[in-house]
């Protein structure tokens, strides 16, 4: 029984290593495709329609203020 446990644990360890390796490759493929398709399309459209901001003599951006409360503070955005 003990022997089976040891074999099982070793097999699990190697399987997880392999799974992580495959996961890493999957991740890179999927996100590279995502980068060149969705982000690429959005970026290309944005570049076409982007207008240069006029020089207002300042680079300060006015910040909007909202009264903080526990409800808005629960938001991560």
């Amino acid at each position, binding site marked *: 029984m003990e022997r089976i446990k040891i074999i099982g644990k070793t097999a699990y360890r190697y399987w997880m290593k392999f799974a992580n390796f495959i996961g890493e490759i999957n*991740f890179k493929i999927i996100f590279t495709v995502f980068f060149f398709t969705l982000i690429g399309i959005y*970026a290309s459209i944005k570049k076409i329609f982007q207008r240069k901001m006029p020089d207002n*003599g300042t*680079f*300060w*951006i006015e910040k909007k*203020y909202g009264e903080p409360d526990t409800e808005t503070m629960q938001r*991560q955005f």
Partner: protein
Amino acid sequence: MNGKPTIILGISCFYHDAAAALLIDGNIVAAAGEERFTREKHDASFPENAVNYCLKSQNLTMNDVEYVVFYDKPILKFERLLQTYINVWPRGLKSFLMAMKTWLKEKLWIEHIISKKLKYKGEILFAEHHYSHAASAYYASDFDDAVVVTIDGVGEWDTTTIGYGSNNKLKLTHAIHFPHSVGLLYSALTYYLGFKVNSAEYKVMGLAPYGDPEKYYDLFKQLIEIKEDGSYQLNMNYFAYAYGLTMTNKKFHNLFGGPPRDPESELTQRHKDIAAGLQKITEEIVLKIVQHAKNLHPSKNLCMAGGVALNCVANGKILQIGWFENIYIQPASGDAGGAIGAACYVYFDVLKNPKEIGVMPHAFLGPRFTNEEIKKFLEEEIIKNMKFPLHYSFMEDEKLLPHAAELLANNFVIGWFQGRMEFGPRALGGRSIIADARKKENWQRVNLKIKFRESFRPFAPTVLEEHADEYFDLKGHKSPYMLLVAKVKKDTVPAITHVDGSARIQTINREENQRYYNLIQEFYALTGCPVIINTSFNVRGEPIVCTLMDAFNSFLNTGMDYLILENYVISKKDNPGIELFKNTEQYLKEFKLD
């Protein structure tokens, strides 16, 4: 009121300088950086140890905590990240893949991580990054109102903000957005000069006085456009941080005449001149920002926070100009201080409690050890476990303080470990290495034999507050957190006088740290000099010591002559066998160079 105290836990982590802070009824009662426990400098990991310390120090558990507040808004940050990749596309794939991995694995699940790691079921709140910085300075100050300026690398979108605080209302009114950032400009040059980003910016500041600020100034003008109102825009053609794995790009290297300096290679005059130019332009921007902030929100008080607020040379310039009667700079101005700010913001702004004075009267918010614990440590850990026949002595303060003063006057270097550990990057007399400031050779001696750091780095002085104006051009201001640089007026303290005749000053009074004050008072009575060297108790790359074992190891493996742990005194002279236990090489290897 049901009499139950309002307990708020502030957390900052996942970028650099993870920390936790505990606020009870509007008072900061405990705060610590995670690095002090894990012994990894600027550790960004979830601050489990720091949280545990904060709670344990007040005999609390997570069940007693009403709110946990995280110091920024992760989704806004993630949005900024995606927008940036859209803006720089098709560049940035490598950086995008790396960022997505950490974000999808960890940073987007902060709420879940907090609940799981802390076994917390209550409300988790999120404060904006720059509101956390601003609140850490404004609410920790004793001002009724103040103009607030925050400058750092980047938060969600903001990199620089201006605002105003009045009673329990803090409003940030103006901002500069990423990728334009003074903090990142400074970090980019830190990288270019061969130092570690988000870690060694202060070295660049220390290097600057060796250089000619005019030599590269015009090149810096090509990097950044500065308006009269202090707003600015970087010329992103020269920077790679928005899309790459480095801070600067080839165009930048061509402009400055070569590739980045290899870490640990020789520092030439060119590097020093670049550092000087950077410091000059940084000061110019900071001064313009502060002036504009004062115009927008007239007040006699200024509060500052954010990593750039640790630029004490720029802070000193603000002081010299005299725009403000009072200046408060949060001692933990970097991201660690965001933990304090986030908690304060909820207590005062969100829960509408009136602003009080004395929210953070000092920075001694970390762990402390009693004489009983020290005796136990020496007897059990050192003598019994390490089998080291240690000779040590116990002295009451009446005997110990004059004795320590005499040791300093006789040119011995002391590891001074007393009271609670400081919160923030500066050692203020709780975990300090102290020496005689009158002996010039101590500058090199402490740098090379005790701190094992670059010889150009200057040392800061601690001066008795009542004598500060005799020695330094502080114009009557206090500098309790070592965040102001001013000219040294006398030539009798060469070990703390930088090459440009300035010093980064810590003033001390009896209320802030009675025992440390009394020690310097004894030194003054003995020598007529109210100034000593005070540098952090650590070696290069090591976080400041936290525990007794950290302090003992540092004492053992460096050229320190004495170690004073509260009322216990250990000397190398009385323990000649200590050399056999020393393994400096191995000890230094434990810490990554910064």
